[in-house]
């Protein structure tokens, strides 16, 4: 699809973007004293329609899923199933495939319906081992993951191989795609995922050899850089981070390397900030992906707030985890 074909789609997305929740609205939701209060406020927003069907306020997760599903289907139909956008939703399919590989008895009703492929089709295709129907990188990864899992029974291997396949599929889809922003965003996601894994593994106390297994290729930050930093103190890692394109994260101080809560928040904020550039592209597929990612982050933030309200998590703890809004 050429850029000129997105005129209607971009205009539609522009109007939908105005309905995204902004930081002030998120703060107001976080300040709600009870779940009912938060849901009542959320009912006044775009989520009103899905929340109206809730039989029990604790089923808010279903409402968030319904809303996200509606947005994914809308964006995919507006883009006429652009392959670039598929990269962003394969994540849900990979999640489902992991579940099916881990348990052969997985049923479609336990799978996410947010992906490219319907859960029942996935279950059927995986059972019949018709892997050729998947992108080649994914098909290959499924075969390797299944074989390794059968050999050593290690469920982590399934996640490791399929996660790497996910980033690889996205890389190849976006590398030769029509959007440079998407490609840069994908590379940033790979780098930040590698950085997050680096911090997590250091906090857990695993060896560098383990990190090497989980390292995702195709990023700007290389494995050698991480190897050099593996045994270094946080201060040194932080000063190195300041020299990378991700220096924004270093501005949070040492906390970004000692608190996974802060790191994950900044990870999402960085990617949101980056895709927010799509707002300045008047014609193109970027605003569609920008809206989709914004909605995903919005649903994640809402889930954090609502789960926090159900479990009486303090407002301070909730606010620590609030993601920056796209709006």
């Amino acid at each position, binding site marked *: 699809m050429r850029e000129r074909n997105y005129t209607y789609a971009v205009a539609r997305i522009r109007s939908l973007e105005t309905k995204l929740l902004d930081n002030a609205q998120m703060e107001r939701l976080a300040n709600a004293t009870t779940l009912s209060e938060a849901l009542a406020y959320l009912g006044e927003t775009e989520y009103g329609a899905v929340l109206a069907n809730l039989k029990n306020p604790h089923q808010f*997760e279903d409402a968030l*899923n319904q809303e996200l599903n509606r947005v994914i289907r809308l964006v995919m139909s507006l883009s006429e199933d652009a392959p670039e956008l598929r990269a962003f939703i394969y*994540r849900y399919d*990979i*999640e*489902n495939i*992991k*579940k099916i590989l*881990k*348990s052969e008895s997985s049923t479609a009703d*336990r*799978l*996410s319906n947010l992906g490219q492929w319907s859960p029942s089709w996935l279950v059927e295709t995986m059972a019949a081992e018709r892997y050729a129907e998947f992108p080649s990188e994914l098909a290959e990864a499924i075969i390797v993951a299944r074989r390794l899992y059968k050999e050593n029974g*290690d*469920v*982590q291997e*399934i*996640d*490791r191989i*399929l*996660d*790497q396949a*996910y*980033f690889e599929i996205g890389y190849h889809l976006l590398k030769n795609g029509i959007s440079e922003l998407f490609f840069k965003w994908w590379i940033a996601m790979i780098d930040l*995922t590698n950085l*997050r*894994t680096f*911090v*997590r*593994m250091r*906090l*857990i106390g*695993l060896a560098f050899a*383990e990190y090497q*297994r*989980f390292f*995702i290729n195709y990023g700007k930050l290389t494995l050698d850089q991480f190897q050099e930093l593996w045994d270094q103190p946080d201060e040194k890692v932080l000063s190195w981070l300041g020299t990378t394109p991700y220096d924004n994260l270093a501005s949070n101080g040492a906390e970004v390397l000692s608190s*996974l*809560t802060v*790191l*994950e928040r900044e990870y999402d904020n960085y990617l949101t900030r980056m895709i927010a550039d799509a707002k300045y592209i008047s014609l193109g597929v970027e605003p569609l992906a920008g809206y989709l990612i914004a909605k995903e982050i919005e649903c*994640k933030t809402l*889930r*954090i707030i609502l*789960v*926090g309200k159900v*479990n009486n*998590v303090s407002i301070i703890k909730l606010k620590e*985890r609030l993601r920056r809004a796209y709006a």
Partner: protein
Amino acid sequence: MELRVNPTRMELLRLKKRLKVAVRGHKLLKDKFDELMKNFMQLVNESRRLRQEVESALADSMQGFMMARAVMSREALEGAIAFPKVKAEITASVKNVMSIQVPAFQLVEPEYKGGIYPYGFAQTSGELDQAIRKLSDSLKSLIELAEVEKTVELLAAEIERTRRRVNALEYVMIPQLQEKIKFIVMKLDENERGNLTRLMKIKDIVRSTENS
């Protein structure tokens, strides 16, 4: 109370023997009871300490799971932790504490090759790592707690049984035996006095017959 007992010397001897056994049994049971109580109190303190430790670790772990649940979708979290990476084994045997058969659990630590985390790191939240770590750390204490709590339960039942036996001996059996012994002694003494009186009377009659 009517005492159904034969006031004979044979019965007296038999009852005295039974009393001796009962007093000795009472002393032994009382000693056992004291020792059981001592062990019980130690185990109760240990159980309280372990429970606090386990509850605090589990609360921290659940808090971590809750935060991970907030950051990750239901399906993603379920897929990440539904299947374990390592499997721990527990061997159960029986040990003897003061003649009571109590369970002994032994956790066979699995080989943590590559960590305990059953998920990949790219699509999961770091909040999950801390929750899994705390849950894994609490496993040993959890099994120890199960062993101690079951031992406390069995010990409490044994203490209750021993207390009933001690009380039965102290307040029922020993007083009854003493009562019976006292009754027989009194009866035998009374018979003795009756015989003596009869003999004296016969002697008087014989003397008066000789004089007349």
